[in-house]
Structure formats: C-alpha cells, structure tokens
C-alpha cells in the first residue's frame, strides 16, 4: 500500500475546450431535432384529422390547439361517404396476391441462385438486382399499352400482374442473402437421409428461413402500398383504385381538398405499415448487407 501520500492530480483540459456540451447531450439535441423534422408532418396529420372544419379553416386560431372540441366527423365522412374503405381493401387484396406471386417465383429463383449456379449465379443475381433500377417512370408508357393489350386496363389485375416486376428483383436479392446464410450441411444431411434437393429446399430450407421470408413479405407489401405511377396510369375509375392514388386524387371536390378526411386517410394508411416495417428493419438490413458483401 502506498500510504497516505497524495499523488498530484493531472492538470485538466484548458478552459477553452469546455464550451462544448457533453457528448451525451449533443446526441439528444440532434436526435430530437431530426425526430421532430421527420415525424412532425404525421403529428400534423393526426391533429388535422380531429379538428372541426371551422376550427381548421380559421386562420386566426392557433393551429396547434383544439380551439373547438375535437371531432370524429372527418373520420365518419372518410369511411361512410368516400371510397376509402374500398381502396384499403383493394390495396390489401392486390398486395396479398402480388406477395403470393413474388414468393412463388422468387423463392425457387433465389434458392437456385444461392446454391445451384456457382459463379455465374452471382452475376445473374446482380443482374436481377439491377433490373430494380429500371424505374416505373421509364416503363409506364409502353406498359400501359401492354396492359391494354391484355385487356387489364382499369382493373386491379393490371397492377397485380405488373407489380411483381419490381418486387421480384428486390425479393430475390434479399432471399439470396438469407439462403446463403443457411449452412449447406443442412441440405447435405437431408439428402444423405434420402430427400431430393427440392424436397430439402421445401421441407428444410424454407422453414429455417421463415423470418427472412417474412421480412421479404413485409417489404414487398410495403412496395405495393407505396407505388403510384402504375396505379395512376392503368386504373381510371375511382372504385378500382389503390389507397396510394385514391387518397390524393379523389378526396377532392373540384378544387377543394377535404383536408380533415384527407389527413385522416394518410395517417390510417401509413401507420400500420410503419410499425411492421420497424419490427423487421434489422433483418432487412442484415439481408441487404449480406447480399451486398458476398
């Protein structure tokens, strides 16, 4: 033991450097600022949805306060007098079918690229992925002709058939990454035990990759709900529209938007997807970077 002799304390950093906030506080400032900037519009949507119209359109009122008591009128109007519910159902139904097609075509394709094709499989994977870069805004004009040719114009079937063109490349890329991370020994053991490779794929690889597949489902569905150009171009009647196009285009009489109902619709259409997305984000990033790195 060194006894009671006090060792001299080292000199602290000079005063000039102390003007900065401790790093923890900086982080909170930044995080708060960004969170407000990014999420405020949605808060605004929420407030608008419940404000009475006279309150809403009174420029003398403080918009952040409920100067008149909140109301459910906008919601009532939205669900009873507009096609909003119909649009939600359209989008959900079309989305489900698109996801189905994506899985049916994408699962085998991703497995083939991950396991069965060697070096040119990697190249093909990248090629598939690059088709994701071909935007709808390049293809939508000729695509409208193709849709008309198939007799699918003004029908949800047009987008059910066309949407997999962008959900597939993306999903195959993600699934490739997930399948690659499944150890080969799993299928090898199954084949030694007597299964064919395809059986091993269906009975073993798919169940093992379930959370990855679920991630792909969520993200494909998100892509479906977000799409705008194709739906706007192919579908002309309001009752066949999706939420993404119906809400901003049809919730208007002449030049006047029904802002209260409109904002309610935006919020209802955005939040559930956001919650699901957030739950699966980590897996998405993992799949994305695995695919990118290998």
């Amino acid at each position, binding site marked *: 033991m060194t006894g009671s002799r006090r060792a001299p304390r080292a000199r602290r950093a000079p005063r000039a450097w102390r003007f900065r906030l401790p790093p923890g506080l900086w982080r909170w400032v930044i995080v708060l600022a960004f*969170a407000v900037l990014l999420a405020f519009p949605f808060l605004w949507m929420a407030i608008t949805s419940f404000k009475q119209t006279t309150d809403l359109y009174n*420029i003398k009122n403080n918009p952040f306060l409920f100067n008149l008591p909140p109301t459910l009128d906008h919601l009532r109007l939205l669900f009873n007098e507009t096609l909003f519910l119909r649009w939600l159902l359209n989008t959900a139904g079309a989305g489900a079918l698109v996801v189905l097609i994506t899985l049916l075509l994408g699962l085998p394709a991703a497995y083939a690229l991950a396991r069965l094709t060697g070096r040119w499989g990697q190249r093909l994977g990248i090629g598939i992925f690059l088709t994701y870069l071909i935007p709808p805004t390049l*293809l939508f004009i*000729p695509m409208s*002709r193709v849709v008309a040719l198939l007799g699918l114009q003004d029908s949800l079937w047009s987008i059910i058939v066309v949407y997999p*063109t962008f959900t597939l490349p993306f999903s195959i890329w993600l699934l490739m990454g997930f399948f690659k991370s499944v150890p080969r020994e799993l299928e090898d053991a199954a084949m030694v035990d007597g299964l064919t490779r395809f059986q091993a794929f269906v009975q073993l690889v798919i169940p093992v990759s379930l959370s990855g597949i679920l991630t792909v489902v969520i993200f494909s569905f998100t892509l479906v709900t*977000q799409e705008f150009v194709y739906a706007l171009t192919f579908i002309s009647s309001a009752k066949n529209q999706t939420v993404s196009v119906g809400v901003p285009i049809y919730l208007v009489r002449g030049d006047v938007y029904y802002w209260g109902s409109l904002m309610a619709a935006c919020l209802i259409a955005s939040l559930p997807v956001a919650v699901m997305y*957030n739950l699966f984000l980590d897996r998405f990033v993992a799949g994305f970077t695995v695919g*990118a790195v290998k």
Partner: protein
Amino acid sequence: MRQHDRWLGAAMFVPALLYIAGLVGVPLILAFLYSVGDVTVGSVGYHFVGLANFRSVLESAAFRGALVHSFIFTIGAQLIVIVGANILALALRHPFRGRGLVRLLMLLPWVAPISLGAIGWKWMLDSIYSVVNWALVRLHLVKPFDAPMWLGEPKLAMLSVILVHAWRMLPFSTVILLAGLTAIPRDIPEAAAVDGAGFWRTHFEITLPMMKPIIAVALLFGIVFTFTDMTVVYILTRGGPYDSTHVLPSYAFFAGILGGSLAEGAAVSVFLVPILVLVAWAMLRVAHRTEVV
C-alpha cells in the same frame, strides 16, 4: 456440381427470369421503339419517325426546364440527405433509452406511401393555412402578409420539392449508413483514441473513409429514387407554377398519358436512361471493390 443440380437450378430460376424479361424487357424495348415512332393513345399502327420526337421534345422550353430541374432536385436533395444522414447515423450509433421509438418515428417519411407524405406536405405548405407559415409569423421571422408561397412561387416551389424529397429519403440513407457505421470494428475508434485522435479527426480520417462503399451505395440508390420519381412533383405542384417544377418523369406523364402522345412521353423518359446506366456502372464498381477487400 452435379448435373441434376444444374438442371434443377435452371428450372427453379427460369420462371422468375421469364416473368421479369417479359414484363420488364419487353416494355423497355417498346419504350425505345415508341420514342422513335409515332404512337399515340389511340393509334393502331406504327411508323418509324427517326429522331423527330427527340427534336420536337428538345425544342420545348418546358422539356429543357424539366431536364435541368431533374438534376437540380436530385443533387440538391442528395446533398442534404447525405450530410443529414451522416449526422443522424452518428447520433444513433450507440444504444440509448428510447432508441427504438426514435427509429420508428424516424422511419415514417420513408415507409409512408410517397403520395400520402407528399399530400401531407401540401397541406402543411398550403397558401392560406400553412402551419409552417403560421409558425414563422409567430416567431416574427416573416411579416404576416408576406408569408412565403411555398408552392405558388417558382423558386420556393423548387425548394419545397427538394426539401420534400430530402425529407423522404433521409430515413433510408440513415439506415444504410448506420449499418455501415456499426460494421466498423470497435477496436478501430479505440485505437484512434489511444493514438491521440479527437472526435473530428477520427471521424474524417478514419470513420468516413471506412464508410466510403456504404455511402456510395446510399448515394447511388438515393440518386435513382429521386431522379426517377414523379410522385412528389405531381402531388405537390403538378409541375407548376408555370412548369417550374417539372422533372423528366412528371413531364413524361403529362405529355404521354395526359397529353395522349405516347411517343413524346417515351422520348422524354428515354432521357432517364443515361443516368441509370451511369449509376448501374458505378454500383458494379463499388460492389467489385468491396469484394476485393
């Protein structure tokens, strides 16, 4: 690799390949064909017209404006996004209480359908009822009757479009940069700390260079998503005022679908291709280089 496996692989892969080749490849070829043809919404036949469509399109001032705007909006938005995403990713790097909730809030602009986010902004920037203007007036930053016409005045409208694009892309880029940031082994910043580097030196000389590939990926995706998007412009301004916010895709829509001249629309959208090819090439370069490392 066994022969059986090769056949199985091909069989499992071909359906998806055909689907994509058919529904992407064919329209892609058609896009080029239309741009050099005389197709309209109602027409039946096809005649080759050479570069006539391109000539007429290039003569239109509105088109030239749209071309320029496309670049301005993309570059402007991406600059804001890359800097913002860097800052936010650094702030979110280490776990803290409430990080999950922050992440959910932060993701909203990206996850919400583009059109709905855009229409939300349209309400927030409304010429009479804008909450943004109300706040600015209250903070005495603008005079009550001088409040900015965010969507009505050309320069402000362009700024609004850029900002809404940036708002939407920020979460996406942040998530990607965050992944890149957490991929840096913990040892490296610690070694830099022991070596005597402060925060800024570590960030600019060690962290950022190590994140270059991932920043490139975020940037390239961001460029594609912004450059080829027509939704924000369509919802916010319909290309106005006076065509000052039109971009190539929105102009293609107006000319091709609303205007009826598919050939003209196709010609306009063909101008997207050079940028896309450039981006694809850049992405392949980045992918190749990170594999080597």
